[in-house]
């Protein structure tokens, strides 16, 4: 009996060895291990064995079965791997063929710049607010310390609708609306469209965008203004950006300043982009004039604040090196696609 089992095993292993396809291995399995297979036949012939020998023979059969199964299983795995590899080889593609892209649209460079600015200031705890494009003279001028006869009213070349209603020339008008709400402290930015009567050319447009910023609280200082805007410049133009504040004049702030940033092309050494100066003018700012606070019902003895105004187009033109402002309003897809 033992010899027979040895013989079956040797034959089975030989056949496994000789198999060159999964089907053949399956045949081996059926032939030796199946219900009608040879080992089953041996088990069936147990009735001829003496009862006391049966357990021993049973164990022998099982051992033989296990050995064959083990070898068979390993062979099946090996064969399956070979088949998969062969299949993968046939499935090679040219990965340099063109992609299938969802044709996404593009944001306007102004909006990209605006969202950057909004992100920075929202991170610093500022609320984004809006005000009307068509505005009362009071909010655009008078409440900003620009009374009826002030020369600044001429400088700004205002579009008027009636004597009292105009197209706002600056988003500073939103400052007044926000202050009038009477909720303090204030930390806001107000992006929006502004209008000035400039003919269209490469650097002028009768309609453009500004972002106004306003902070009002107890103990706000010019140093806070400098610190805030220096942070802003670094976030917007890069960690190495330096800022320079120059005294300036705006009717609604005192002291006032203009802020320059180091040229982001040459880093401040001076190049054609910054006209050799190393610096680029970026915004106007200052400490809110006490009279402006008074007019909007805020006590300047208790509260101080700072304000700033950034030209959105200016930032977009500088950041993306756009050389003609008209491109921003032509909406040529070949331009827009680049952003």
């Amino acid at each position, binding site marked *: 009996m033992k010899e027979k089992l040895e013989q079956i095993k040797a034959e089975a292993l030989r056949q496994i060895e000789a198999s060159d396809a999964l089907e053949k291995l399956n045949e081996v399995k059926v032939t030796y291990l199946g219900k009608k297979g040879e080992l089953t036949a041996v088990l069936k012939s147990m009735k001829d064995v003496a009862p006391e020998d049966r357990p021993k023979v049973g164990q022998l059969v099982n051992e033989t079965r296990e050995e064959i199964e083990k070898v068979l299983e390993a062979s099946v795995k090996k064969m399956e791997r070979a088949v998969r590899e062969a299949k993968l080889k046939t499935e090679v593609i040219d990965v340099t063929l063109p992609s299938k892209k969802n044709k996404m649209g593009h944001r306007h460079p102004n909006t990209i710049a605006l969202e950057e600015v909004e992100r920075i200031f929202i991170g610093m705890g500022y609320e984004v607010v809006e005000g009307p494009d068509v505005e009362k003279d009071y909010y655009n001028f008078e409440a900003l310390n620009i009374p009826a006869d002030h020369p600044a009213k001429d400088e700004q070349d205002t579009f008027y609708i009636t004597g009292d209603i105009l197209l706002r020339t600056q988003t500073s008008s939103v400052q007044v609306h926000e202050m009038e709400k009477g909720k303090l402290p204030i930390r806001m930015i107000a992006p929006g469209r502004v209008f000035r009567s400039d003919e269209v050319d490469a650097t002028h447009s009768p309609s453009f965008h500004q972002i106004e910023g306003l902070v009002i609280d107890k103990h706000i200082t*010019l140093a806070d203004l400098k610190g805030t805007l220096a942070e802003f410049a670094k976030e917007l133009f890069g960690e190495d950006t330096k800022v320079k504040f120059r005294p300036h004049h705006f009717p609604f702030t005192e002291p006032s300043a203009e802020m320059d940033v180091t040229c982001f092309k040459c880093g401040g050494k001076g190049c054609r982009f910054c006209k050799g100066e190393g610096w680029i003018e970026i915004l106007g700012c200052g400490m809110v004039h006490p009279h402006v606070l008074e007019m909007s019902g805020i006590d300047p003895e208790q509260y101080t604040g700072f304000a700033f105004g950034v030209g959105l187009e200016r930032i977009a033109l500088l950041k993306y090196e756009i050389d003609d402002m008209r491109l921003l309003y032509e909406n040529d897809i070949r331009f827009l696609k680049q952003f």
Partner: protein
Amino acid sequence: MNTALSWIKAYVPELTCTDQEYMDAMTLSGTKVEGYTRLDKNLEKIVVGQIQKIEKHPDADKLIVCQVDIGGEVIQIVTGAPNVKEGDKVPVVLDGGKVAGGHDGGPLPEEGISIKAGKLRGVPSNGMMCSIEELGSDRNFYPEAPEMGIYIFGDDVQVGADAVEALGLRDTVFEYEVTSNRVDCYSVIGIAREAAATFRKPFVLPEVTVRENGEKVEDYISVEVQDTELCPRYCARVCKNIKIAPSPQWMQRRLAASGIRPINNLVDITNYVMEEYGQPMHAYDLDTIAGHKIIVRRAKEGDVFQTLDGQERKLDADVLMICDAEKEVGIAGIMGGENSMITDHVTTVLFEAATFNGANIRKSAKRVGLRTDASGKFEKGLDPYNAEAAINRACQLIEELGCGEVVSGMVDVHGEMKEKVVLPFEPERYNKLLGTDVSEQEMLDIFRMIEVEYDAAKRTLTIPTFRQDILRQCDIAEEVARFYGYDKIPTTLPNGEATTGKLPFKLRIEQKARDIAEYCGFSQGMCYSFESPKVFDKLLLAADDPARKAITIANPLGEDFSIMRTVPLHGMLVSLATNYNRRNKDVRLYELGNIYLPKALPLTQLPEERMQFTLGMYGDCDFFDMKGVVEEFFESIGMHKKAVYDPKADRNYLHPGRQANIEYEGTLVGYLGEVHPEVCDNYDMKTRAYVAVLDIPAVLPFATFDRKYEGIAKYPAVLRDISMVVPKEVMAGQIEAVIAQRGGKILEDYQLFDIYEGSQIKDGFKSMAYSITFRAKDKTLEEADVSSAMKKILNGLEGMGIELRS
């Protein structure tokens, strides 16, 4: 404002710095320098030479050969200049030197022109004699220079000396941008005072003493000011025995550097004093002043006056005039009259130095249509105290330059003179506002430099009258900041109560609109808010269309920008057309911008500004692509209900059979459609185009970012397909309304999966097929549930004349 540095240094004698240092420091202390020009740029190796001998050139009729003494050495120069003679002193550029430009006075080359020794028609020439144009200037600024030919010096220059120096060109002209609040800095003295304070060097004002002839000015002139509101001060002085001649070189050079052409001593003195003091002056020929009397009064409505430029100017009652006993002689602060103007034959001059109401001058100049240097200064509101200083300075110069003699005294008419502003000295307040720690002593040092007086006993500051911009403590703080140095102020962050950064809901919805539009392939455009009233015709709007009620701008840039838009389509169509005509294929654009709807016209209150989300496209696309974008947008902002598309939109600018109003829960939120071919023609687009407009304020009440998880269905769905023959005029929307209404609670979804019109379907009908999904939340549906729902649906459909196919 342009000024030579040498003129500034006349008042700040200890000022030493490079041009760049000067520019940087002045800009940082608040007097912005826009740039500077060295007058001796590209002028190298140029000396004063004297022509000793002139001979004819042996081989050229138009050339001469000169022997020129250049100081201890005589060199030979060949020239074609016609104007030189023996003994003339001339500028000579030596071999290896440079001049700034050509003799024709054209644009100056960046690198100048190098001069080398050579031969002219065989005769050696070792340098070049220069014209004023070759030295980079022109006859406007050197009126004594000949029209064609070599510049010839006066006798007082030394042979061999630096010719550039002798011409006053060793100097730098700085261009300043003065802010409108600093009226005092529209003058050389004002800027010099700032320079002195910036560099902490002594400031030395010119000493003004006038030698007078002892006669009384009142015997020559009387002045009556009828409107002291418009003319707060009028100073008049008289000079006689006037001898008109050129002004001295130093004065001419300073004027030239400021961009003012030297004319003669009298004109130059008034211009010089205007630059120096910032006070415009006017000189009248006293012999033309009737009654030797000046009256300052308003013009009569409709009067016409001839200014000294020969132009007739229309006047009105708000224009202030200078008159004599009989007639008008000048428009106050703007321009004198032809009838009293100075000629070369003048013998007695009346000087006027006045101050006028700035706003009135500004408006008058605008209305009269004449803006002059003088009016530009007056309109800023000048310091009345300065008028007296300036007129005395002018008289001093008249006398010192030998231009005439000065009659004693001044006629001075003024109302109440403004008192000086006095403020308490509060150093802690300044530091608190600036975030600095500037010492009291340093502040006082700064005040001394800018002539703010400190009274230690009262602890007050008295502001000089020329500083009309200092009115409050914050203005004082700015002075401290400017001269302490903006760069030295620390950088800190506000440390008050914490606030939350916020983007309001409307802007979040707009952001979502941008995201969806771009995801669907649309790029963002931007259009103007104002447009032409002609767009209404281009868009085929009916004569009574309410959209034609637009706000008109009173002073537009032209008709094309004269009304505020009431529909957003014009900008979109122009943009699409621009792309189309530039042959860009498959263009998709969107815009987020306001339209402006007046409540009543003319405007008495602010209009309604409504944000419009406008989409436009042409190329490989159709109506349903656009509809898809609209629905993607709705879903992204939580509008999950079915919107109704009503084809009866009646919009003339859209294709009559391809347009729809979009309604959400019964509210009109927008519209979409194919652009009417006639409108496409109007915009020069030979292609089909599609637009959609969503009214953001109408959408907002339905929008939400709230989401609620409803669970994933546990029980199986049952699908039923129905195939129908439908009368052509029945729309999918109607069929879907029936399915939705009659499907009951177990109706989950329905999708059109086939639509066909054609030969296999009878005329006037189309074939449509829907797949309907039923599902219950709480059980597996039974056949009876589904059949009953289907029966209701089918009954409904049959009622609409729809035939069911097996």
